[in-house]
C-alpha cells in the first residue's frame, strides 16, 4: 500500500514585531533589524497543512474537506488581522518568528484535528521564506 497525504492551503494576515525581552534595545535592533520596527509590521501568511492516513472507504477522503476547513478556519480566525505579540497569548514571552509561529500552529492544530493525522505544516511568511515542521523531518 503506498502512503498518501492531502495538503490544503490556507491564508491569514497578521502583524508582529520581532523583539526579545532577553535582549537590550541595541541587541534587538542588531539581530532583528527591520523586523524590530517599534510599531510592528505585517505579512500575508500562507500555511500548507498536510494530513495523512488511509482514505475512508465511504467518502474516499482522509478527512472530509468541509470538516478539515471548519477545524482550521475556526482556529485561524483567532490570528486573522491580529497583532500576534499583543493579541495572541502564546507570543507574550516568545518572539513571533516563523519558527515559533509554525510551532504554535502545530501545537494548536494537532490538538484540534483527529488523532495522529497531522503530518506536516509549511508556513510561508513571504514569497521568499518558509518554515517547515513535520513528522518526517
Amino acid at each position, binding site marked *: 500500500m*503506498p*502512503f498518501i497525504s492531502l495538503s490544503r492551503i490556507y491564508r491569514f494576515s497578521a502583524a508582529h514585531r520581532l523583539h526579545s525581552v532577553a535582549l537590550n534595545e541595541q541587541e534587538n535592533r542588531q539581530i532583528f533589524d527591520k523586523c524590530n520596527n517599534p510599531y510592528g509590521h505585517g505579512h500575508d501568511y500562507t500555511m500548507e497543512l498536510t494530513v495523512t492516513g488511509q482514505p475512508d472507504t*465511504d*467518502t*474516499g477522503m482522509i478527512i472530509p474537506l468541509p470538516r478539515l476547513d471548519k477545524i482550521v478556519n475556526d482556529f485561524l480566525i483567532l490570528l486573522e488581522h491580529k497583532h500576534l505579540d499583543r493579541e495572541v497569548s502564546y507570543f507574550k514571552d516568545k518572539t513571533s518568528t516563523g519558527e515559533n509561529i509554525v510551532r504554535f500552529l502545530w501545537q494548536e492544530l494537532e490538538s484540534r484535528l483527529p488523532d495522529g493525522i497531522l503530518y506536516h505544516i509549511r508556513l510561508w511568511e513571504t514569497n521568499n521564506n518558509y518554515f517547515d515542521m513535520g513528522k518526517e523531518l
Partner: protein
Amino acid sequence: MALKITISKKFEFSASHRYWRDDWSEEQNKEAFDLCVSPYGHGHNYELHVTAAGPVDPQTGMIINLTALKQNVSEIVRQFDHKYLNLDTPFFKDRIPTTENIALVLFDLIEAKLNELPGVLLDRIRLYERSDLYVDVWKE
C-alpha cells in the same frame, strides 16, 4: 543521510466529477461533500507532478529520458482528460473520484507503466486539484 536524486515532470488534465453516495441521504452527502454534490458534476484543471527515481545512466546522464517519461505518462493522462470521471472512466465505479482516489489510481497506473522501462522507479506523484489543494502518493 543517503543522497537521492529524482526527476519530475508536470502534466495537466481537465475533468469533471461528482461526490455522491446513493446509499446515503442527501443530508449525509452534503455534510461530507458540501458543494461537490452538485447534481451534474463540476470540473477542475488538475496538475500532476510525476517524480521518478533510479540510477543516473553514465552514458546519457539521465534517470529517464524526458521524452519517454512524457509519452508513457501522457498515455495514462489522456484517459482522464476532458472526461466526466464518474461515468467516462472505469476507475470510479466503486469509489468516489476524490483527489485522494484519483491520485491512488494514477499512482498504480503510472507505476505499472514505468515498471516496463528498465531501471526506472516511480518515486512519488503530486496531484493538484486546484492551487489550494493537493495530494501526494509515495512509497518508501
